[in-house]
């Protein structure tokens, strides 16, 4: 059996996994990244490095993944199919493996129309299901999508994403089922702020015996102000921010909104930890990455001894 990644080992052992999202910088300055990485080391099991999130140009996710790896933080390489065809995706995947990057999470990605280069040509040569299946083939059969043998024996721990807050639950369940059947080994969900709706989704997932086959890591949002909450609600399609959260943040004076945001965050984590079928949390702190170590500490998710 091939060696496991840290994240893979934690989930296999049944421990509660803690991951967080990290958006690469728009530029080449990595001083802040190194600072954040040093603070995150040992506090999370892995860090998802976003791939040009919201279709906005950022430093490439594989480059930042390598920087984190060198700083002692295990990366999860996010790969969207929006910008690269199957030639480029496979090429970058092989390169990532050679650099020691083995966790990969696959999704289609936001459409360029909502990004900072709306004139860009979209690619979407593959969708998430097809790309997940391709990675499995490269790892398990040692050959590319075209059947050509590759040198070496790469190991990948492959994940997919799911949005629990959708109207057509059955339709999205079928899609999730396809991602898992294609080879997804873990699922990261979009941030959960409505426990009731999330529970409904999770019971569907469990009803289809999907959670047994593939651990579910629930997303948690850390909001630093009502302004950010409104931005996420209005600009980030797919992420649902209930009125109750906006009202709660808006009800406290501005200088206390951060603290209230942290309270909401901690309550979410506590609720998710109590929820059967949730195998870990994926923390998303939009524009608040430097706060991650404190958030993790205060949510009582420490210590995260590195199992590697």
């Amino acid at each position, binding site marked *: 059996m091939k060696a496991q990644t840290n994240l893979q080992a934690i989930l296999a052992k049944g421990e509660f996994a803690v991951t967080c999202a990290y958006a690469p910088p728009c530029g080449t300055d990595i001083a802040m990244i190194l600072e954040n990485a040093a603070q995150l080391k040992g506090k999370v099991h892995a860090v998802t490095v976003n791939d040009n999130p919201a279709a906005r140009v950022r430093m490439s996710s594989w480059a930042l993944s390598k920087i984190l790896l060198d700083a002692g933080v295990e990366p999860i390489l996010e790969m969207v199919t*929006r910008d690269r065809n*199957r030639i480029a995706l496979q090429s970058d995947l092989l390169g990532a493996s050679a650099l020691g990057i083995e966790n990969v999470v696959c*999704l*289609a990605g*936001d*459409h360029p*129309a*909502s990004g900072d280069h709306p004139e860009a040509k*979209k690619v*979407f*040569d*593959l*969708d*998430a*299901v*097809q790309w997940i*299946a*391709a990675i499995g083939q490269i790892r398990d059969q040692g050959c590319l*999508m075209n059947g050509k043998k590759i040198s070496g024996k790469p190991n990948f721990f492959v994940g997919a*994403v*799911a*949005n629990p807050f*959708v*109207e*057509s639950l*059955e*339709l*999205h369940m*079928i*899609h999730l*089922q*396809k991602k898992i*059947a*294609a080879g997804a080994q873990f699922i990261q969900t*979009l941030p959960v702020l409505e426990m009731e709706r999330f529970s409904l989704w999770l019971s569907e997932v469990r009803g289809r015996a999907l959670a047994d086959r593939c651990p579910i890591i629930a997303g948690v949002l850390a909001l630093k102000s009502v302004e950010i909450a409104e931005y996420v609600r209005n600009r980030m*399609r*797919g992420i649902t921010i209930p009125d109750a959260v906006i009202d709660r943040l808006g009800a406290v004076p501005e200088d206390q909104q951060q603290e209230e945001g942290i309270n909401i965050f901690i309550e979410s984590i506590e609720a998710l930890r109590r929820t059967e079928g949730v195998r870990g949390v994926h923390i998303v702190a939009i524009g608040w990455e430097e706060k991650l170590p404190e958030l993790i500490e205060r949510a009582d998710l420490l210590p995260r001894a590195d199992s590697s």
Partner: protein
Amino acid sequence: MIIAEMKPVKEILEMVRDYQNILIVGCKGCVAVCNAGGPKEVAILGALLRIARRKEGRDIVVDERVLDRQCEPQLIEQLAGPVKENNYDAIVSMACSVGPQYIAEQFDTMVVLPGLNTGFMGGTVVHGIWGEYCAGCGTCQIQSFGGLCPLTRCAKGLLNGPCGGSVDGKCEVNKDVDCVWELIYNRMKKLGQLDRLAQAVGAKDWSTSLSGGPRRIIREDLTI
């Protein structure tokens, strides 16, 4: 049909700025049906150009013709007489972009200008609104999707299910457009085909589309 729309008059005026004698050629095919380049639109564009140039104090002679179709070289030949007699500076084609290219091929010393922006293969949604329904991928598989095309009608062309950005049954990119995956799901549910929807669709072979270079369809039985 091919859906097109007339270019902004300003843009056409700019293209013909240096010319005094032009021919506008319309088409009675698709672009006449979608009110972009038929006899009526040719007359309107002709009038607009004359009025605009008169205002500038630089009159322009605009002849108007409409061919049955411009996607047929034989029909383009009908322009040979008028072109020879009138010494035009340029021809504005109001067909889909096949038209101006065919005219350019037959009249190699003539400037040919596109009067339309060619949009897509589609149909009427309601009067005055046209929608895109086909991407011309070359290997139609809509039987796998309840008869609807996710390749064309999903903004991301996803073949296995909806993205997470689909909200209230509407597309992530345009709230006025239905998420085609919702439509596919509703159709396949009614057809009792959800088991089929649950089967993974493999990576698309794009070599039959424009990725394989300009395409030709050859029918040996019809070639002379």
